[in-house]
């Protein structure tokens, strides 16, 4: 499919198209607003491209089916929102430990609990990092437009396959339901990464053999003759359970180093007018759109405001934020939650500059005017 024409698309739709372009051929889900269009779209599109869709009995089962399908060799995804995301966490942890590539889309809505089903929120930021129990690596990405919903979904699959881990794609109700004119890239121009298959014959294959310094093990599919074991228990490189302290430490360190050694590859962000900025806005997702408008309003009045927009939410762009904190006078963090990312930014800023939040968790978006007022207030 070459697709150069401009199209009017919804964020959720662009996410699905990005997933299919990235090679997604399996989707398991359970309906929940505001993510449902992704499942509906997948049920229609996947059989047309030789893929598989299934509506499972709940989100626990959806996440399980996604992992099973990935082990059987298909690129797999699920999509949900708050209450469903909470249910995904059990098997998200399983995918982290067993290193099964997959993508989990969380189109955030107001919480906690059933919360505000049709209103936007950005309140699952910390859940995306620490939701599953136990120490585990995390990658979470967050687009801010319909066209990015497409491209960042492709990136999510690439990172999942490259580092053999679940990748969370965060969106919010605004991005998921917004319609924009987009020009999708030519599929031939996309860089698509696939997991590394086994390079050795079955008798030499060890499913979790990799450089202890952040290496990623090779992954043949079930049915390809390798007959290996996968368990959610701590395991040694042969895949079988162990309680040995040293082997446990080696495994957990390797999982964390997959991220820590590759920050430059994983962390993506957008910088806007940071060079002379005295006030820096740090914002992500739909709130970054308001922040951009507020920045333009301030610049028109001669106020030196810049914008730093993380696209990779986790791992955290620590070095970059430290650098900003060393130069700017103030950092303002608008987010549709009660200050989740701000904690992380404050930690990195370590007192070098003041970090101020603009926070709403009432189902209303943060407007450019809200941010502009705050900018004027802190001058």
């Amino acid at each position, binding site marked *: 499919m070459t697709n150069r024409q401009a199209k009017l698309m919804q964020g959720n739709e662009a996410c699905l198209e990005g997933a299919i372009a990235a090679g997604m051929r399996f989707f398991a889900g359970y309906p929940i607003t505001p993510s449902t269009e992704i499942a509906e779209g997948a049920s229609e599109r996947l059989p047309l491209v030789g893929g598989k869709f299934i509506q499972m009995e709940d989100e626990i089962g959806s996440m399980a089916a996604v992992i099973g399908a990935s082990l059987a060799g298909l690129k797999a995804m699920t999509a949900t929102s708050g209450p469903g995301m909470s249910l995904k966490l059990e098997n998200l942890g399983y995918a982290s430990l067993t290193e099964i590539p997959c993508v989990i889309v969380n189109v955030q809505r107001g919480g906690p609990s059933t919360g505000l089903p049709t209103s936007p929120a950005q309140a699952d930021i910390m859940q995306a990092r620490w939701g599953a129990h136990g120490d585990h690596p995390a990658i979470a990405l967050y687009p801010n437009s319909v066209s990015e919903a497409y491209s960042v979904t492709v990136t999510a699959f690439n990172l999942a396959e490259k580092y053999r881990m679940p990748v969370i794609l965060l969106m919010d109700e605004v991005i998921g339901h917004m319609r924009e004119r987009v020009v999708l890239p030519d599929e031939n121009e996309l860089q698509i990464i696939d997991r590394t298959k086994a390079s050795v014959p079955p008798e030499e294959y060890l499913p979790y053999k990799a450089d202890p310094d952040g290496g990623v093990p090779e992954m043949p599919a079930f049915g390809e003759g390798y*007959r290996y*074991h996968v368990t959610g228990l701590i395991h040694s490189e042969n895949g079988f359970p162990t309680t040995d302290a040293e082997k446990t430490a080696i495994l957990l360190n390797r999982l964390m180093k997959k991220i820590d050694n590759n920050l430059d590859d994983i962390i993506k962000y957008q910088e806007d007018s940071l060079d002379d900025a005295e006030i820096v806005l740090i914002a992500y997702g739909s709130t970054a759109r308001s922040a951009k408008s507020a920045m333009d309003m301030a610049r028109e009045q001669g106020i030196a405001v810049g914008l730093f927009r993380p696209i990779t939410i986790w791992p955290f762009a620590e070095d970059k934020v430290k650098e900003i904190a060393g130069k700017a006078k103030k950092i303002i963090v608008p987010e549709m939650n009660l200050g989740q990312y701000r904690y992380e930014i404050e930690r990195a800023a370590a007192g070098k500059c003041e970090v101020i939040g603009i926070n709403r968790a009432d189902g209303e978006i943060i407007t450019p005017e809200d941010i502009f007022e705050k900018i004027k207030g802190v001058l």
Partner: protein
Amino acid sequence: MTSNLVKSYFRMDKLPHIWCPGCGHGIVTRAVIKAIDELELDKDKVCIVSGIGCSSRAPGYLDFNTLHTTHGRALAFATGIKHANPDLEVIVITGDGDCSAIGGNHLIHAARRNIGITAVAFNNNIYGMTGGQYSPTTPTGDKGTTAPYGNIDKGFDICKLAQAAGASYTARGTVYHAQLLTRLIKNGILNKGFSIIDAVSVCPTYYGRKNKKGDAVKMMEWLKDHAVNVAAAAKLPEEKLAGKFLIGELYHNPQPEYTEEYKKITESLRRG
């Protein structure tokens, strides 16, 4: 002395297993591999998926594609595997707690879809791995570490549950009737849709001890004395069946299988 069957299908270097002396789970595991052997299935195409529990440890010892998942979720993982690649022979090993308590929802929905998976429930009427708490198949009145005064819950009949939900094959065997159990598993695998075999096992360590059922041998004798084959039961008067339970093929009614139905949609779209 190790049998050829064990040598051919066990990962010998992973033995000894974790099971207690007298545990019935080894007998059920043997019945599973015997069924696979008799059907001459290609090892590379067999996936054994389990949840969490003593029973669910079995796949680790078996030389197939093996997946030890989370508690109760084996059937949902297995659904993903089977749907993604219907050429794989997917067998689920689960416990009574694993499949009928925490995994009860996945059980009824796998049955409802009639997806081509064969589930073998190692049913020892107790939560073995966590030390003997009552499960959804602990008989009313029996004891567990969380039912010190006797269990007031009513038990599930796993086969009836699965049949009502849409399974196309249900059967019950026991660890005393090992050859029958093998045959039932074999027929379950041959059935195209969702099959469940309720494999009545024994846990002398917890269920046996808590309920003064004697050692493993006594518990096996109890199975022998209380199991009645469905064929024989049909000819017996009601009163002779009191306190007994049925074994054998309980239900077999071939129905369209999920992944084949999905394939039909894909093919019609391709033609269309």
